């Protein structure tokens, strides 16, 4: 048996009926390319399944948890160090959200 190394990704698949959503989502991912603090977008592709139907896929960075799960399931910060760490993390979240509102697309800056 060979050593089977693999990468783990998240894949989002759209049927043809949602092609419009797919295209819009890809467009947005591209616009947010190189923005730090976000799940990475690796690319998209189109293929046809065995029934001949077009399927559109977006390949993303895989994450074990989402933000909500982390907030709801992790124990709340108690010690001063934990509280400080928590708020530092929240600051990072806020910074990332802010970056979404200040985009640089093809050299053109947009303030939302």
């Amino acid at each position, binding site marked *: 048996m060979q050593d089977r190394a693999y990468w783990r990704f998240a894949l989002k698949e759209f049927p043809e009926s949602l092609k419009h959503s797919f295209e819009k*989502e890809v467009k947005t991912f591209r616009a947010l390319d190189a923005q730090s603090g976000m799940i990475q977008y690796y690319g998209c592709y189109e293929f046809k399944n065995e029934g001949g139907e077009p399927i559109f896929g977006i390949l993303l960075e895989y994450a074990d948890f989402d933000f909500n799960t982390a907030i709801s399931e992790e124990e709340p910060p108690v010690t001063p160090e934990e509280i400080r760490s928590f708020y530092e993390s929240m600051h990072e979240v806020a910074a990332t959200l802010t970056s979404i509102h200040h985009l640089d697309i093809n050299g053109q800056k947009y303030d939302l």
Partner: protein
Amino acid sequence: MQSPMEVLLPVEQSHLGLPQVRLSLQSPVRHLETSAVPLQRIPSRTPPPIRTLAPHPTTPLVVDNTVLPSSLALKAQFSRTDPKYASSFGAIAFERTTRLGLKLVGWRAIGLAGGQWAKLERPLASLIGARRQDWEKQRPRCQQGAAYNGLQIPPYVLRCFLLGPDQHHGTPHVAVVSGCAWFRKAVGSIFMRSGLLASDGFNCFGLPDKPEFYTNTGSDGTAPPSLVGLDEFEVQLLSVGPYFNGIGIEVLLEGKSVSRAAIGGFVHVADGAFGMTVRHAFIPPDSSMSFYTDDEDSEDCEIDIFEHESPDSSDWSGGQAPSTLGSPAATDFGTPAPKFSPVQDSATSDRTPLELASEIISAREPTLDWALSKVGSSVKNELFAEVDPNLDESRIAVKTPFGVTYGDHCSDGILGEPIMGIPQPVLVVSAVGIQLGDCGSWGMRVRDGKFVGMLIGYSPTLHEAYFLPMMDIIHDIRLQTGQTVTIPGFGKDPPTLEVASSVSAAWPNAKPKILESNEPGFKGSSASQTWHGATPGKPTPIEPGPKHVDLCLEIKGLIKQYKRENAEGRTFVLVESLTRALEAKYPERLAYNLYSVVQKAHERFSAEPPDIYLDNIPSMLCILYALIDLGHPELLPLFRQCRDHDLPIREEVLDVLLNQEDLEYRFNNGYRDFLARWLYVQPAWCPFVFKLGRQLDVRIRPGYIIPFYAKKPLQPYDFGRESHDTRARLYQVHIPAELVKARGLDDSQLLRYDDHVSAPRFASVSPENIADGVSVGLAGSRLLALRPQRVP
């Protein structure tokens, strides 16, 4: 150490993988449009209004006893767009308005139609040579009896467009682009009768247009080859600028200028340095030798749409007459020709001036449109545009004597040149501003600085430049000379530039005559050998390798070792790993040994050597491995028109490539049995490779294997509400490390299955069987930032 907090990009409609902080995806777009910052207006691609001819009086058409307006009846010829081609509409290449007032648009074929065209173009081009006696019958009698020399093939281009009045009624069409009406109709009819087009829903039409071969000052460069030897020509530099690439040259015959062209770049053949230009620049400007004529009535620029004909139709001329659609002109895109700044003269350069020697080299029977002019000094090629890895790989920079212009590689095609014996496979680059004397210029891929081809023709109405692939040229020079050919690079490191590998492989029908060193035309010198219109040398002899049977068994064992199954149970082979394993065992000899396998197997059936070159082997590894796996490596020469990137090959194409009658006796169960086994096996050799980054934004060709070891549905978080009605699905997928090409991935995130445990397939991936999976939101490693650090 804490890493920065991450948030997931919110997405619209699908509601999968949403972060807790919810943003509407529409917001950025909508706000962009109303933002105080004005949006940058992108120049419209819509062409300006075009001239139309006044409708000619015509007889109303009757369909099912109903009189239809002529334009409506014509429009009815275009059925609704097949949904599978809905994404195949590229940029608009031309627009033509018929006499009946119907506007027909030609879109460049991309996606599925583009992929199918890639498979069709070469078999179709081969029909032009194979069925010549058929189309020759249609040559006008006044031309048949004329005294002329040469190959007598009108200039033409084979292209693929989606043609129709709008994108709802567009069909993929093979276009026979030529200035000769009789040639368009004859070749179009042959294509339609071949049966190659029908299976994919392709049609064919003739497009009146004339490719230009921008070189000659005295004629249009389309005269047939002359008996004048190349040694009677002289080449002079028009100017020497700061860049050696793209230098203008003037070709002289008996002291008189016959053409202008460009030396696009330089190659080293053995120990000699040569400037590369086009072969068709070396033609006497005898206008009387232009034997073919364009359409006599230049105003009558008709698009000829051909109907499907029965393959057993006895006489094509007796078939249905093509539809006649008049048109005044192709679309003017309204794009102004770029203003080029002439290259500065030598006063701005501190380099050693370039000197041309007297030798000019080309094949005596040219197969590809190249010629080499020996240079007296050692020069290197230079990057003539700034390399930008963020640009799309289709972006091409062209260095002409007038400056640098840019275009986009949009398709491939076939260019027929009167002086060349075989059709020229070309890269089609949409570009404007190609000028007289630009032929010979090199194109460079801006993304990585690789030279992709040499300019040999241009269509000023379609705004398409035709480049002979650099890989084909180098391959052909190597075959013609039997010597090592390299492209000297810039600076000291690296010593040579790479040839772009994504261009099409060498034209398979090119079978140059390899001359013996004692044949006329061969010249030798003490320091190095130069060849004058001839091709000396022999292919490198194959040295003894491992036993044929042993190597076949070894390869079969490795194939078994590197076979994998995807989540759907389909088999694919890790080809790169297989080849690396073989290379490790046979360093620098793998191609020789594989060629030896083919040669030995071929000897069992024929006394003749296999009709394939050693240089073909590296680009046909998958095909050869598959044939070895099937026990028939001797069949590789029959696939010489294909390369690995052509896989999977459709059955109709295989029927053209392989000769059933010849093969029937070789197999115990006949040709059809072999064909069935090949069609079953070949998908394993084309797993999709994930080149992460923007270049992954691709359409995966039909038949490719999606190589997910595992594919597990994930449950998106729905914020405590009912799931929205969406059919977008989210999965966790496992992709073999060998098939992921990416920079910047953290190797520490690379996972491995246990050596003794097969990959979990998560075979049941139906939406109804979604397990209690996890949602996608924050990258696992980054989640640590949110988790409070417990202080002991």
